[in-house]
């Protein structure tokens, strides 16, 4: 085999490998999504004795029930129902909410930005504080600082989030009056402020409405800090363990032998390596905050997806509950995939060249 032949053979092998990886990727996404839909289908259509009643509630008149049964295709065999269900879900049709009488998707589109904004700010706080804390704990292993970080993390792992939220409201809102009343924005601005993206902080900045920005900030800071604390607990603990592992490696000795400063070694070499698994951790904690919104938003009356789901739950509005579940599940799947991709780009060993 000549040299060029050999090379082109290798290149072909490599591109075949890339295609296989992409295919595998697709299979993973598709099966996970179908699995999610299968579970929600099971919850919505199989568990309830009469799904129509589950959707409409038991006060609906008989002819409405019959019409809905037809419309939901409940007279068809189960596998056809599932097929139709998947098709509808993929086109974003989760039915109509009994509570709001809107299409569930319309409702979700309205409330989801609030949840995203809160979870994003929470993760930002958690990562910006948690990573340095974890690094500090690892570098000063066994010191008082390490112990303190450990306790902060342990408490974060063990405390019920809704309870801490209640106490935080009691202290920072009722007693100290540092933050605003639960909710997202003051009633004064509710009608004068017209958001574009749905992310109020961004919108207020964009429109240069400083007083609105201040008000929105006073509303978001407490729930965001709480969520931040929970992701901080997780992120700092994982950062510590990844950093301890990296600091033992031989390349750290080599970096010292080059005369690099400790700061450069810690932040430039060890953390750069620890960042590879950390990305997954931060992505997972982001997903965790999205999900945890169900509990925190209830306490803070935060008009996001979590509050929407719990309100629907309390009113037995199954279409809305399952629609919300599918949306959060889809975001989870998306975040998992994204962190996988990020992992690959951060680690040259898995990067496709």
């Amino acid at each position, binding site marked *: 085999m000549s040299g060029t032949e050999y090379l082109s053979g290798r290149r072909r092998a490599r591109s075949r490998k890339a295609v296989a990886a992409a295919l595998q990727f697709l299979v993973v996404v598709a099966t996970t999504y179908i699995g999610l839909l299968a579970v929600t289908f099971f*919850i919505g259509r199989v568990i309830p004795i009469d799904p129509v009643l589950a959707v409409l509630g038991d006060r609906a008149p008989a002819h409405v029930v019959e019409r809905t049964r037809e419309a939901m295709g409940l007279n068809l065999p189960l596998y056809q129902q599932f097929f139709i269900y998947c098709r509808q879900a993929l086109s974003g049709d989760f039915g109509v909410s009994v509570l709001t009488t809107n299409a569930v998707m319309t409702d979700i589109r309205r409330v989801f930005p609030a949840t995203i904004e809160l979870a994003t700010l929470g993760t930002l706080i958690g990562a910006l504080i948690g990573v340095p804390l974890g690094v500090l704990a690892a570098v000063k292993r066994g010191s008082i600082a390490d112990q303190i970080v450990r306790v902060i993390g342990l408490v974060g*792992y063990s405390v019920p989030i809704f309870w801490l939220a*209640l106490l935080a409201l009691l202290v920072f809102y009722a007693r100290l009056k540092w933050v605003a009343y639960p909710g997202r924005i003051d009633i004064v601005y509710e009608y004068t402020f017209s958001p574009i993206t749905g992310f109020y902080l961004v919108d207020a900045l964009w429109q240069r409405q400083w007083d609105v920005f201040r008000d929105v900030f006073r509303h978001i800071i407490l729930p965001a800090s709480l969520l931040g604390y929970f992701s901080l607990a997780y992120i700092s603990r994982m950062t510590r363990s990844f950093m301890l592992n990296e600091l033992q490696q031989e390349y750290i000795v080599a970096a010292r032998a080059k005369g690099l400063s400790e700061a450069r070694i810690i932040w430039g070499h060890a953390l750069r390596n620890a960042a590879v698994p950390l990305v997954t951790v931060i992505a997972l904690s982001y997903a965790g905050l999205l999900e945890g919104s*169900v509990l925190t938003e209830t306490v803070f009356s935060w008009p996001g997806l979590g509050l929407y789901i719990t309100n629907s739950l*309390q009113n037995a509005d199954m279409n809305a509950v399952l629609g919300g579940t599918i949306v959060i599940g889809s975001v989870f799947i998306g975040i*998992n995939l994204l962190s996988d991709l990020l992992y690959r780009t951060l680690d040259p060993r898995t990067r496709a060249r």
Partner: protein
Amino acid sequence: MSLATETRPMTRREWLLSDRPQSRLQARLGRAYMTWRRFSANRLAVVGLLILLGLCFVAAFADLLAPHSPVIGNLAGARLLPPGSEGYLLGTDDQGRDILSRLIHGSRLTLAVVVLVAIIAAPVGLIVGAVAGYAGGWLDAILMRITDIFLAFPKLVLALAFVAALGPGIENAVIAIAVTSWPPYARIARAETLTVRNSDYIAAVRLMGASPARIVFRHVVPMCMSSLIVRVTLDMAGIILTAAGLGFLGLGAQPPLPEWGAMIASGRRFILDQWWVATMPGIAILIVSLGFNLLGDGLRDALDPRESGQ
């Protein structure tokens, strides 16, 4: 060891630490003793163990320990009394019920949820993982795909949806939590199985004609136990928090059951003026899940020295 040490009668500790155990029992006890020594050197882990022993004690003797009835209150004379009131150490709630007594009885519910979830989810995960790892091939591929699918789900939200469909109640909460918490156990069991599957002693057992089922249950599953126990212990805190969350949303235990999460929810209305009604159950949850986390950390370090320091 020289002959001299064998003629002298061994102390119990020497017997345990002997590097030449005379029986399987001695070897096993010796190993347990070593694990215990590593575990008990970790003071926080011992604190965790004590917390959980305390929980079990309180749950077992709730009837004797509780000064008042957990469900019937003194509506006329003892509504919303602050902590430290005469006869009501932690105060009373809006129905005049003693919060301490409710907490004591609530420990039973917490313990029940945790134990039930563990005995449903852990065996399911263990069997799925061990079978997948031992069988390999397409069975492995399918089982692990299903596991991964479940792993990618939002656990809390899915549990909520389950309970919403099944109807609120503590049994349904247990089922919902169990359904969403087996996948990590399957992953662990599979990983452990893969490492022992090709070992020589499994090959030896196979040569002796043991059936695959026997190999999996008698030889593979026991090998997965220690990492599984660690993981389950660490998950307990999360299970307690999820159960409390469901209770808080009114989907778990129903009134008048003294479930801690539901107690927080009912105290929520008075949080500004009668802070103790919601605060006390939260402290109870915090202590118990802290206990599980401390114990889990300690167990991990003691059973798996590789991972210590993480």
